[in-house]
């Protein structure tokens, strides 16, 4: 078996530096909330739908409270209060506010115990539903058997959810284990979640609850045919991180792109907003049994994969610590990395083997998410197909958790039906060919692979210790991450972060903490 000989001292130092960094945010997590978190609470209370102009009702209510300067207590209590006063469902309240018929701040406050009772009831019902979804998933896996490892993960990205369904089912019938419905370009930056089914999107469909529902239904159908539970994933990170997490929990998504820092670094979303939102969204993921996936591959699309390999390791360690704070178990942490080494580099395979083994050995219990070559994918589809084969080789050899298949047309267009099929054929051929190869091999003493892995880890330790010293916000402001400067008070969405007042109440935050033992 290929096994690195990693300096255990380095591992300990790495984890403790990461923990020091992430544990310095209790002030933020305890004392602040965000517009997205409040919208999430409303959704979890059962509010959905949108105005004729497309503005979703959760946004309408939160904006309404904000405009009345009544949000510091959270959105839950005003809605419960209106329910009691008007004998309405939560949705009924939302509809009324949407029509401009109801001013939530104009209703006298009911006694606390009554309010809490309403909210306790509603939140229990929702958590019961989410738990049922989790149990359905687990029952399916029990019935059909566990996911293969590495799981075959492919994207669909036609921009039309109905066309996506065709492509997803075809992929499942060819062997895909996980379908990712790619999100329409830069949804991260929308401070609302669009409503309804998408039929014309650029580079993907929106992450909407209806799209989730349509695709999950299709995959449930094909799972029965294939006698294999086909998982569904989408993207949470962005300005609506917790909302999308909640929608995923409700509609039984199985994995969710959810990176603690992606929004900050790659979408210029405000650091406080992002960290706060990820804290709550990951609790929802954890409770729903959804496997999170992180976006370390993004570092390597702009930086060199050899020179900056340590940034991947450092980010994985931070994502791990943040996830632990939200109650995510290691078995549900799909920490990311990517095969982005220049194919012209001599020994690119050995470098990649070192990096892949390092990730796998640092996080032995995690279904590590392995991303394919994209940066050096060119219009030469034959060459790209080979690079994807080398990627598949390493994925199987080092037992990665999730193999995000590369497409030979990566540099050209979002995948055609045939591209995806050939990608699956590629993976299945290579996976079978090197199935148990790992058992026949070991690393030579003082091998390049081992030295390289230790070097990357040492660089990550040095980096994390420096960040722990400076503080994460300071380090980001100075461009220590991904070579981009992100000041603490810059970026989008800072005005959506607010300090909770003493009356603040979020039934889900409290219950989830309790359920997750936090």
């Amino acid at each position, binding site marked *: 078996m290929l096994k690195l000989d990693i300096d255990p001292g380095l591992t300990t130092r790495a984890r403790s530096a990461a923990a020091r960094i992430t544990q310095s945010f209790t002030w933020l997590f305890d004392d602040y909330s965000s517009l997205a978190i409040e919208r999430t609470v409303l959704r979890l209370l059962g509010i959905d739908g949108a105005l004729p102009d497309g503005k979703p009702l959760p946004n309408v209510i939160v904006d309404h409270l904000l405009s009345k300067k009544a949000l510091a207590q959270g959105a839950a209590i005003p809605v419960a209060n209106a329910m009691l006063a008007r004998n309405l469902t939560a949705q009924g309240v939302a509809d009324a506010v949407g029509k401009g018929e109801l001013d939530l701040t104009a209703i006298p406050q009911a006694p606390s115990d009554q309010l809490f009772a309403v909210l306790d009831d509603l939140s229990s019902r929702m958590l019961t539903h989410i738990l049922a979804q989790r149990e359905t998933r687990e029952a399916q896996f029990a019935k059909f058997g566990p996911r293969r490892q590495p799981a075959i993960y492919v994207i669909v*990205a*036609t921009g*039309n959810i109905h066309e996506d369904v065709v492509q997803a089912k075809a992929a499942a019938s060819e062997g895909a284990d996980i379908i990712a419905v790619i999100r329409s370009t830069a949804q991260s930056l929308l401070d609302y979640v669009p409503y309804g089914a998408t039929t014309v999107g650029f580079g993907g469909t929106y992450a909407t609850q209806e799209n989730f529902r349509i695709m999950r239904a299709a995959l449930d159908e094909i799972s029965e045919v294939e006698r294999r539970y086909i998982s569904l994933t989408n993207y949470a990170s962005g300005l609506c991180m917790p909302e999308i997490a909640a929608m995923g929990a409700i509609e039984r998504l199985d994995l969710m792109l959810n990176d603690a820092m992606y929004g900050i670094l790659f979408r210029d979303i405000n650091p406080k907003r992002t960290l706060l939102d990820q804290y709550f969204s990951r609790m929802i993921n954890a409770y729903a049994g959804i496997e999170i996936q992180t976006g370390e591959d993004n570092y390597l699309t702009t930086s060199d994969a050899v020179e900056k390999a340590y940034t991947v390791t450092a980010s994985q360690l931070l994502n791990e610590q943040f996830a632990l704070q939200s109650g995510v178990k290691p078995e549900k942490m799909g920490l990311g990395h990517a095969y982005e080494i220049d194919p012209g580099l001599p020994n690119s395979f050995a470098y990649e083997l070192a990096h892949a083994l390092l990730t796998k050995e640092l996080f032995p219990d995690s279904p590590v998410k392995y991303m394919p070559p994209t940066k050096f994918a*060119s219009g030469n589809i*034959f060459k790209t197909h080979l690079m994807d084969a080398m990627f598949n080789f390493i994925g199987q050899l080092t037992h990665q958790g999730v193999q995000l298949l590369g497409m030979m047309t990566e540099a050209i*267009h*979002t995948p*055609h*039906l*045939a591209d995806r099929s050939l990608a699956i054929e590629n993976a299945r051929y290579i996976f079978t060919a090197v199935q148990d190869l790992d058992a026949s091999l070991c690393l030579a003493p003082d091998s390049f692979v081992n030295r390289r892995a230790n070097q990357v880890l040492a660089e990550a330790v040095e980096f994390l210790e420096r960040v722990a010293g400076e503080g994460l916000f300071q380090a980001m402001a100075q461009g220590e991450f991904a070579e981009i400067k992100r000041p603490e008070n810059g970026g989008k969405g800072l005005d959506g972060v607010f300090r909770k007042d003493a009356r603040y109440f979020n039934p889900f935050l409290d219950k989830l903490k309790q359920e997750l033992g936090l």
Partner: protein
Amino acid sequence: MTKHIIRPYGDTSGDGKMQISFSLPVSADAVGKEAAALLLKQIGFDDIEICSIRDLGEGFAHFIAYAVTSATVDTAKIKVKVVDTPVMDMEATDAYVRENLGRQITVVGACIESDAHTVGIDAIMNMKGYNHRYGLERYQCFNAINLGAQVPSEDLLQRARAENADVILVSQVVTQKNIHIKNLTRLIELAEAEHLRDKMLFICGGPRISHELAIELGYDAGFGTGTYSTDVASYIAITLAAKAQKP
């Protein structure tokens, strides 16, 4: 546009997307790229994207492209000639012949002329067979004589006559410059000249042979890639039995 009219599919129904690659005697630069695009345009493609240009040396360049065709096919109008006798396994075929013909069938097979690729004909005829289907030699109802590789057409016909064969099996694998067409045509012409054509079933096979092509060339049947002995044996048994019925 009715439901029968179809076009290639990339990721949107009927988008007409196709992948194309080819070499041209041009330089691997903007001029070469334009030549490649013009060629595709002239063929009739739209939305041409030349996504890769590779220098091949010696004044050639290789292009990889995606483009859109407006060509359509009406599936309602497709008529293919396929061997349509049902496929039986070895035991069933033996039983069928015993019942319907009551005698052994003599089959003489060969890979003719310069072609030395015997794996295909062996897969059909040899004891061992192919992919868990025994070959004709193992069938009780067949007397299977495999002459092997590079058999002149004359020798094949002579042997078939000598054995009083019911069926001739011919394999052709090399297709460069359509040599297989030439060889197969010549065999049939010789057979006609020797008045053997109507005395036997003439069956050909090989990776570029289809039933359609075989018929066109004057054969009774043709079998391509992925054929098993069972396909051929069933076809022979049923066809000969039918012939025997109406004399």
